[in-house]
């Protein structure tokens, strides 16, 4: 199976220095668990710290050299279409750029391939040309999908960590620089940029000027409440009521 892993130029979340994006290295780990024919792809002006991916076991990295302002989609789409890949893996979202996670979807659309999001495990399917994808959902739940190849799959941060960095592997891997087509980014309505300021989350909302006791109450109470009270029931009665209540809330498998 021929697999392409899309690697973007990231920045370290704390230091802000150029660094590979962790979830893309996890995608590389999943790819190497499936096949040996794995190729990395990056479109951008500079390969910089993406050489680290070679140390995590990537045998070959194609660098589509282009300007920083260029749209990466046409170049990547052309390289993927001519490469004959069965599977394209990308991160859920980049880290250090626009970080909207839109690129894999735009690429799947340009290539006419199906796309599946948030993989944490991949395995070859029973029928040839299929792939079993385990998808991460909220609260530790999973969904197992069988998809037809070729396809684009994005990887979730809950996926297993990649193989550790090895210096010898980094020396062995090759970087292949190719000229990417220069396509201007489609005109987007400009958005104003300013330094980031964390916003308070909506958990506790006591009115301005409320006393300390009121603010504590807002922080510890929730909207629900005004509940039912059973005083000194028999244990059996209490147990029956609790189970019925849990069922009504859908917290227990119903009967």
């Amino acid at each position: 199976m021929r697999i392409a892993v899309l690697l973007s130029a990231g920045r370290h979340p704390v230091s802000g220095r150029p660094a590979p994006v962790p979830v893309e290295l996890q995608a590389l780990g999943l790819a190497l668990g499936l096949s040996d024919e794995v190729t990395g792809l990056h479109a951008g002006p500079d390969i910089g710290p993406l050489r680290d991916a070679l140390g995590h076991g990537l045998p070959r990295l194609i660098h589509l050299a282009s300007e920083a302002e260029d749209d990466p989609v046409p170049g990547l789409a052309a390289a993927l279409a001519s490469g004959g890949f069965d599977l394209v893996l990308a991160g859920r979202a980049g880290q250090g750029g626009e970080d909207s996670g839109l690129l894999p979807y735009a690429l799947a659309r340009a290539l006419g391939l199906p796309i599946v999001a948030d993989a944490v495990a991949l395995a070859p399917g029973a029928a040839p040309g299929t792939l079993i994808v385990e998808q991460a959902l909220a609260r530790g739940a999973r969904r197992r999908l069988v998809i037809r190849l070729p396809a684009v799959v994005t990887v979730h941060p809950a996926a297993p960590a990649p193989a550790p960095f090895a210096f010898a592997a980094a020396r062995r891997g090759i970087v292949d620089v190719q000229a990417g087509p220069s396509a201007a980014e489609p005109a987007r309505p400009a958005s104003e940029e300013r330094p980031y300021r964390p916003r308070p989350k909506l958990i506790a909302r006591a009115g301005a000027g409320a006393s300390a006791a009121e603010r504590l109450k807002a922080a510890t109470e929730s909207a629900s409440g005004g509940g039912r009270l059973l005083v000194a029931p028999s244990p059996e009665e209490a147990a029956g009521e609790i189970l019925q209540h849990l069922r009504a809330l859908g917290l227990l498998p119903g009967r």
Partner: protein
Amino acid sequence: MVPGTARRRLDRAQRVPAAEAAPSAITAAIDAAPRLVVIAEPAYLVALVPDAPGGRLTPADRQLFGAARALADAGGGAVLALVERPGEEFGPAGADRVLALPVSGYDPEAKALALNAALAALDLRHVLFPESADGGDLARRLAALSGAPFFAAAESLSPKAVTRAAHGRRVEQRRAPPRLISLAPDAVAPHAGSRHEALPVAFAFPEPTGGGILSAEFIPADPAKVPLAEADFVVSAGNGVTDLATFRALVAALNATPGASRMLCDAGLMPRSAQVGASGTVLDARGYFALGIAGAPQHLQGVARCEHVIAVNTDLHAAMIERAGLAVVADAQLVMPALLRLLQDEARQPERQP
């Protein structure tokens, strides 16, 4: 300041009646029954696509309604909910119109194609999605399909501007709300104060075509393994529980994740990773079942986000009893075995309907 005194002084007790007149007017408005608002001729439509797993709205879905109402009410627009399964919850949540999508099973591509048809034909001004696993996926599919401008994971939203974090959370981007927006959790307050009519809308969707997904199977989380912060249903023991063996058996029988108060963790009876509260884990669970827990403020902070709380305590005046949706004043050592017995009885006769 205390009015009417010769010398001006700061009032720290804040028990002056004059200062209380304003807040009580606000509470009176909230206490009144929500009035029904009818928007017959909307100037434009603001659509939203809630996750609504199994037809129930999640907290993120309710916040989505709050955001859509803010965008619609600014110019006489109406809120259109695009849902898989119409239900009664949408009117009180804030939907003026409801449109059922022709989707069955897990097929996000078919859902995105249906949304794309509605986006073009109904001239939707905005379409809002929750930035959840399925909502975020759907938003990006629609953005790629339609080519409409998309604003991912908005952290604040008003009719004038939306903002989001970019460049590794170093930069805040701000612009006028574009056509497609996905909303980060806890960014906007849920809609409250008025009911809406939730009129069903008819729309001829194009025939769905087969996508690349051959089969889909849901695998529920293993509650014994999920981290406490991600758990859906937590059963927790406090100082009132002495019979921990029965407690563990009960947790397993209820298919829940175990938790504890700090007293039990300090005593080494439960692992520190199970501690719920300000200095332990703040839960995001839907359900919380507290056995023999007094409900100290430090503990209650950990359950502030839980939708449903059940408490068993011998003390009628415990704070946990006040916080609970179902409160049982009884001895936990007697209730736990009774619950176990009832669950075992039910397991033995699986066909009987209650």
